[in-house]
């Protein structure tokens, strides 16, 4: 498989803490790679470097062979919106907006027409088993439902890569399995690469490969 996203020899320090010391990772289209490691090992820093949220001090990140780590901030922000999707442990949904509008956000931010964006959002909610959630606000959703809404939001713009940072961290095991089943099926179906950071072996077992990060190196 040709690499979709590649991070090579990444270094990153925060003050005197060296979070990454030569970490690297490759993801192909439709491939799910789990990143595991003890707390403080650099998993999340690696994810943030790969996702162009922060710039590494050294090393490089490439998407389709094109360097993205040295792009200006504004270009990186645009890239994250158009090419990447994100899932965090607590959905991080906008509390004031109903589920469908939360899901439609990436399309709306990209300037897509409202009506079409909301229709697509409803389709995604149905696909993820939440046909009746469209008009409900995050406070009225269970943890598992909220996380499926977050998943729909991460996938709706058909990103090249989804970054999932402890996506099941706040869920019981049954809801976690459901979210992971949906994430894996969707990623395979639309050839999205997935970088899955988790400390749960059962979650990492959904991945095609597991990369262990230790002391900032992988």
């Amino acid at each position, binding site marked *: 498989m040709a690499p979709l996203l590649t991070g090579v020899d990444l270094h990153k320090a925060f003050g005197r803490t060296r979070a990454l010391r030569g970490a690297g990772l490759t993801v192909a289209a439709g491939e799910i790679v789990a990143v595991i490691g003890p707390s403080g090992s650099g998993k999340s820093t690696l994810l943030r470097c790969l996702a162009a949220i922060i710039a590494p001090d050294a090393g490089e990140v490439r998407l389709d062979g094109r360097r993205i780590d040295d792009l200006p901030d504004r270009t990186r922000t645009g890239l994250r919106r158009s090419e990447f999707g994100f899932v965090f442990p607590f959905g991080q949904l906008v509390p004031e907006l109903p589920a469908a509008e939360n899901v439609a956000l990436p399309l709306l931010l990209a300037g897509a027409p409202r009506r079409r964006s909301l229709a697509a959002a409803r389709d995604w909610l149905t696909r993820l088993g939440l046909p009746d959630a469209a008009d409900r606000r995050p406070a009225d959703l269970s943890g598992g439902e909220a996380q499926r809404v977050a998943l729909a939001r991460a996938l709706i713009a058909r990103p090249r890569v989804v970054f999932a940072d402890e996506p099941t961290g706040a869920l019981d095991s049954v809801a976690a399995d459901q979210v992971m089943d949906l994430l894996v099926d969707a990623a395979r179906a639309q050839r999205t690469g997935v970088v899955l950071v988790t400390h749960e072996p*059962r979650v990492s077992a959904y991945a095609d490969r597991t990369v262990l990060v230790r002391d900032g190196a992988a």
Partner: protein
Amino acid sequence: MTVSYALLGLLEEADRHGYDLKQSYDRRFGAARPVRFGQIYRTLAQLTRDGRIEVTAVESGAGPDRKRYAITPEGVADLDAWLGEPAEPEPMLQSVLFTKVVLALLSGRPAATFLDAQRVKHLDAMRELTAERRRSPGTQAAMLADYRLFHIEADLRWIDHAEARLAALAEEVRDGTPADRG
């Protein structure tokens, strides 16, 4: 032990021949290891002697006679008691991991390398089981895979925990005295 109660349970559901019992057992419980015919018939003979099941019909055909078995009230009471009794936890399923770590440290071999290799092996097993679970057609098969997954995960948690405390354990093993539990 478990096989005899499984057979009692299957017979409580319906009277059956030995052959049916093997099929039913394998379908419900035999995913990991199907039961052998010999064990089925030995267990049936024992249960009959104990009065927990009885032969209700013998059918003659071209082959050997086929006996049909039914559970007795004693069998039902016994099954009831077994189901109501919590099973002993088995916390030492993988004590071999613990033994290897201590022996490695005792002999100055790299215990961390062993733990790393074991982690890879466990993660691979979990990945295969998860794939199998995702392919499995029903809840029962998925639950059996889950049972195995949770047990392997417990080992993995111990491996991570042991790795984090390897230095303290090495010191204790070398000195032969318990170190401070830091």
